[in-house]
């Protein structure tokens, strides 16, 4: 073997500055590589990562913080953010910034180099039959720790690249197929084969029982999963209990009210019959938007059919406020939020007539209404109250200065459940690297001191035995203890 003629490779990093053997003879690239893969450089990489991560904790981040906070931060620190963006570190997305990736990649290249160099040295040492000293096993532990840390990233990348990750909303009683069209948002990995499972999930029911303090004690989606039309799993899905089938996992993420509204145009045609997803922080008041693009009614004097839209506020347990508003205002009772239980559901509807602006693509968001090309139904832009199971009749101008009545009905109040749906085949690999990392770390930190202590103890016993006895010493001398804890 060629390696046998080489001097034994150094296994530990030198603890004192070594003479720079051969450093002068290296090419500049070699010198750079030497500096780049040194542990000192790795420490600086780690510190750089630390700095970026620190920014990420205090500055609201896209994808993990609320969008509004991110927008507010960018607005308040425009110049600072621009400056950092030019430097490759946009402040509101540091975990996906070029600088972060460069540092991570640098660290991993250095890590890989370290793992290869040290692994080769260890293998060489093993093949040459060097004595299995405590330090030798410690080196293997360290090598395993670093290698498994490297493999962890491989596992993460593999899982993300070959899987997908999305958010899906399902209303009570609804059936949804696991196909791209069913998702609110969906991210597919670069190497994902594009074949979604097509499993159909049925949200049988949803419940969020409230405690006396008004907070839910639990929130549970009862779901049935169908594979090729056959029900295969029925399960209560809650935060700590997901529904998994053949690698596709459904996680309970959020929930809310989905009032079922039915709108008829002046001709009496049903022009909208949908559950509207409402969003809220505390479930005692939530907001949503009704959009009726195909209203199929043309106002007098206009060439195109009009559209209607409304901003909605839902109080599941509306508390009627005693005061009555001034004359000329259609809202004669105002409401305040009560509890999160559906004791007295009331919708406040702020209606707009005109163009929803869906054609220009600027207002596709289902949670916001672009009223730029719309006029409020009431001159004061007031809202009217619509209790559950009731229908309100409203008037629109008709030909010959007449009016045409149309209706909005609050038919029902189901709940929706929001699921995080994903496929990630990397998870078992990630867990494997966790185990290897722990084994490596514990070997490095504990096996070597343990073996050293045992070796010393054995030596002490041998010495004691040589003096004519075979008793085992109860405790090692203090010098041993001193050395162990200060190593």
């Amino acid at each position: 073997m060629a390696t046998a003629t080489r001097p034994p490779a150094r296994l530990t990093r030198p603890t004192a500055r070594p003479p720079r053997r051969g450093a002068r003879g290296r090419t500049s690239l070699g010198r750079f590589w030497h500096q780049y893969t040194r542990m000192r450089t790795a420490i600086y990489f780690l510190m750089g990562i630390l700095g970026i991560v620190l920014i990420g904790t205090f500055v609201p981040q896209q994808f993990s913080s609320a969008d509004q906070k991110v927008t507010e931060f960018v607005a308040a620190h425009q110049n600072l953010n621009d400056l950092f963006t030019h430097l490759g570190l946009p402040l509101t997305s540091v975990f996906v910034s070029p600088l972060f990736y460069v540092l991570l990649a640098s660290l991993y290249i250095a890590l890989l180099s370290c793992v290869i160099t040290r692994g080769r040295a260890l293998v060489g040492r093993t093949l040459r039959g060097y004595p299995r000293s405590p330090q030798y096993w410690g080196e293997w532990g360290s090598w395993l720790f670093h290698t498994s840390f490297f493999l962890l990233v491989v596992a993460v990348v593999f899982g993300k690249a070959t899987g997908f990750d999305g958010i899906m909303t399902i209303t009570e009683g609804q059936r949804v197929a696991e196909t791209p069209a069913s998702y609110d948002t969906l991210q597919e990995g670069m190497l994902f084969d594009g074949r979604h499972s097509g499993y159909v999930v049925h949200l049988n029911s949803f419940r969020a029982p409230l405690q006396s303090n008004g907070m839910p004690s639990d929130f549970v989606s009862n779901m049935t999963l169908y594979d090729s039309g056959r029900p295969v799993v029925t399960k209560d899905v809650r935060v700590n209990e997901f529904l998994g089938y053949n690698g596709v996992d459904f996680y309970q993420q959020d929930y809310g009210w989905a009032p079922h509204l039915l709108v008829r145009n002046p001709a009496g045609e049903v022009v909208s019959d949908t559950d509207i997803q409402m969003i809220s922080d505390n479930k005692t008041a939530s907001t949503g938007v009704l959009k009726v693009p195909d209203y199929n009614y043309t106002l007098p004097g206009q060439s195109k059919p009009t559209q209607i839209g409304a901003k909605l506020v839902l109080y599941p347990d509306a508390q009627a406020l005693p005061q009555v508003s001034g004359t000329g205002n259609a809202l004669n009772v105002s409401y305040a939020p009560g509890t999160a239980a559906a004791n007295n559901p009331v919708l406040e509807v702020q209606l707009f007539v005109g163009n929803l602006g869906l054609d220009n693509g600027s207002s596709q968001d289902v949670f916001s209404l672009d009223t730029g090309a719309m006029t409020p139904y009431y001159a004061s832009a007031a809202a009217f109250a619509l209790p559950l199971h009731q229908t309100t009749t409203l008037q629109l101008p008709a030909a010959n200065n007449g009016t045409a009545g149309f209706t909005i009905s609050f038919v029902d109040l189901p709940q929706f459940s929001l699921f995080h749906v994903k496929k990630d085949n990397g998870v078992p690999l990630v867990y494997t690297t966790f185990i290897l990392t722990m084994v490596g770390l514990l070997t490095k930190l504990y096996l070597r001191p343990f073996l050293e202590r045992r070796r010393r103890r054995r030596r002490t016993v041998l010495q004691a035995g040589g003096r004519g006895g075979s008793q085992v010493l109860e405790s090692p001398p203090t010098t041993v203890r001193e050395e162990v804890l200060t190593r």
Partner: protein
Amino acid sequence: MTDTPLSLTLFGVAVAFYVAALVGFLAYISFRRRRVADTALALVALGWPFHVAAILTRAFEAGHWPLGNIYEYSTGISFVVVTTFLVISLRAGQRLLGVPAMILAIALMAVAYMLYVPPGNLVPALHSYWLTIHVTSMATASGLLVFSSFFAMFFLARRWADGYALATAGGASRVGGVSGGGGAAVMTSGGGGGVGGGAGGSLAGALRKLPSARTLDGWSFRFVMIGFPVWTFGVMMGAVWGEHAWGRYWGWDPKETFSFIVWVVFAIYLHARVTYGWRETRAALITVVGLVAIFADLYAVNLWIAGLHSYARA
């Protein structure tokens, strides 16, 4: 108040003992009487069973593993700190450590009291046996890692005192001091006394009652050696729980991010110990950064930065 839960009463008794003990340890610094320190240590040992009882009764009152909000979590970490201190004191006869350990334990319990929540149900997200595994590991690791910083600070203090002694006495007190106390027994004072006058001199004299710098550095490392794997394990278990509950093992949530920061800080420490020019003083400073990071992770993230881990007030 008639409806004070038993757990809170026991908690109060434990705090009272710890405060008395802290006074004793501070008196020990001033008077340097061994008996004063032993009395203070006895007070800690008397308060400890009340602390245990406070945690156990709280668990029964709340009906869940008592690490579900910041009151319970702070009480838990202070329990780890006090227990660790007791073990070190009884095994190695270290007394001065009582000052930082008691200050920290009392501060943690004060924060716990300020953020007190009556025993009650857990938020749905915490309904899991992973609470026991993940949160207990994190609390234990936090409680252990702070001791590495304590010893590192003692190390820096001892280093300074040795340097001071060397400068004033011109090498007369070298024996057992600066060079690391080759023959010094494990946890007895490694030298000192007879250092020049003045405020600096008396402080240096007091600090030279500490074990040798080398021993202190060893103890600091030892606690990273114990705490770092527990922290690593706790973060990994958190990842497994995150995958189980939310469908992602890592999401750069502020709490996750900060636990990563703490992990990186101590990883840097471990590498620094084998890097020329980074050992000793710089390594010691790194553990102090680690201490700050642990408490930022504990409180700043829970109270001021909203994230998935914001269970503080639940």
